[in-house]
């Protein structure tokens, strides 16, 4: 069983698995949004942690950097909040399907109440409970302190704080200027842009799923899979040399992982055409450059022409969704191009991951002369 996990938690498999799970969660959202599922999910998560911590190897690896403690709370809270939000959203959807207002909009909930003591006391309780929680946490777990700083010797692995491990994990697939500067920058810009892109007037101030399906699916995918799952990979499944280690696998510094990645230019000129790499950089990287341009410029142009026709949930997204002409009309060029740019940039991550796993792709564009590698 542990062997199974040790092998199949490799992002190659687990990322795919998580994506599939995400797909099913959306597809069977009504099933997910039941109390039984919620209770089962919470119990399952807790049991998973208990079982994991019973394994000495897992515990040892986890405590290598005992700054990981918050991850436990994060995972529990993620499970809870995701389920809870969906649960409330689906409930409201059902009510609205029956022609009722959402719970939050019922007249009794629209009633105005005194802030004192209703709100102030709620806050006071939250503060007190928060303090108690923090004290408990502080008493049970010492804050980590390692050896004194030594600039001449780096610990292996050298990990960033856990909340940045998603970014660090991205470094496996992208150069730092993308993973460390551009993409994080786009995350911030993209988040700020959300209210201006999302022109859907529905779902303002109450939980819902169906009324904001597209927005919620995109957001949840980014939040759960691309952000938090990568953090979990970075925390739990990455060991010395940033190699993959199963959750129950001993961190053996000498573990060798075959990593021989090839650039598109090499695939084109050496492997396919069988000639020397051209000395002109632009010629050498022509394939990668064209592919990048195609992805970022031609692809969206094609999309607005309704070249694709999907069915089912994806159909909902693709045909009637943002890829269609209808969306372009609704959003206007400016909003639409920002949206599509952000979405395409988001998708570069899974795309690059799968390219790496499937064809050992190192760089699409490789220009070390200018430190410009994609």
């Amino acid at each position, binding site marked *: 069983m542990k062997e199974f996990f040790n092998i199949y938690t490799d992002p190659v498999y687990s990322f795919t698995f998580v994506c599939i799970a995400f797909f099913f969660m959306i597809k069977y959202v009504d099933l997910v949004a039941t109390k039984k599922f919620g209770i089962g999910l919470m119990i399952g998560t807790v049991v998973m942690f208990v079982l994991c911590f019973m394994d000495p190897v897992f515990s040892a690896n986890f405590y290598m950097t005992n700054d990981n403690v918050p991850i436990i709370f994060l995972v529990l809270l993620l499970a809870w909040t995701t389920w809870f939000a969906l649960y409330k959203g689906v409930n409201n959807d059902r009510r609205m399907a029956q022609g009722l207002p959402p719970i939050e909009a019922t007249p009794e909930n629209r009633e105005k109440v005194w802030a004192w003591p209703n709100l102030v006391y709620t806050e006071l309780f939250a503060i007190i409970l928060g303090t108690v929680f923090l004290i408990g946490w502080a008493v049970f777990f010492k804050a980590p302190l390692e050896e004194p700083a030594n600039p001449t*010797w*780096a610990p*292996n692995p050298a990990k960033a704080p856990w909340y940045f491990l998603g970014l660090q994990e991205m470094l496996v697939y992208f150069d730092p200027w993308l993973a460390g500067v551009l993409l994080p920058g786009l995350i911030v810009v993209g988040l700020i842009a959300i209210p201006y892109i999302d022109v859907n007037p529905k779902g303002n101030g109450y939980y819902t799923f169906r009324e904001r399906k597209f927005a919620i699916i995109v957001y949840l995918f980014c939040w759960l899979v691309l952000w938090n799952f990568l953090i979990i990979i970075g925390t739990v499944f990455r060991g010395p040399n940033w190699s993959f280690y199963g959750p129950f696998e001993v961190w053996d510094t*000498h573990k*060798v992982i075959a990593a021989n990645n090839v650039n598109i230019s090499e695939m084109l000129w050496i492997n396919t055409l069988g000639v020397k790499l051209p000395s002109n950089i632009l010629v050498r990287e022509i394939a990668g450059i064209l592919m990048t341009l195609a992805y970022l410029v031609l692809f969206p142009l094609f999309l607005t022409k309704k070249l694709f026709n999907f069915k089912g949930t994806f159909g909902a997204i693709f045909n009637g969704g943002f890829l269609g002409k209808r969306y372009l009309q609704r959003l206007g060029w400016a909003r639409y191009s920002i949206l599509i740019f952000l979405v395409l940039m988001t998708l570069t991550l899974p795309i690059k991951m799968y390219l790496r796993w499937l064809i050992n792709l190192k760089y699409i564009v490789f220009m*070390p*002369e200018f430190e410009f590698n994609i």
Partner: protein
Amino acid sequence: MSKRTTLNRREFFSFLSVGWIAFAAAAGGMASLIFRFLYPNVVFEPAMDFVAGRPDDFDDGVDERWKNVYGVWVYKNEGKLVALSNICTHLGCVPTWLPAERKFKCPCHGSGYYANGINFEGPAPRPLERYKVNLDASGQIIVDKTKVFRYEKGEWTHPDSFIVV
């Protein structure tokens, strides 16, 4: 009457624009003060360049005289002199020069490098780095460790990465 108004407006516009332009420039200057303030004029960091002597002081092959002080091997061969970093590209240990076998061997995980710094055995992913070298007016070699030349980037042909002797 209308003439006066336009004149007034122009006058009004120019004073206001002068005011705002000057104010913006000054405020920009104050802001750039913060920017400039954050770059100190003097930095307390170990010196990254040193004088290694004259090219004639070195025999062909690997010379270890600067290894302990500056972490640099001087390697002279076929009319070229280079400064090799003594940091293993695997995990940053310090390899040992074995004159009999004519190779660097890392004691930590057994990476091996030829005398010219190219890796040939063990886990090292890439050759040793080379530092910038050039000659000063008195013909002394200046090794500058701030500039690194890496083989896999094709930088070893850069004119600053070696001295012709």
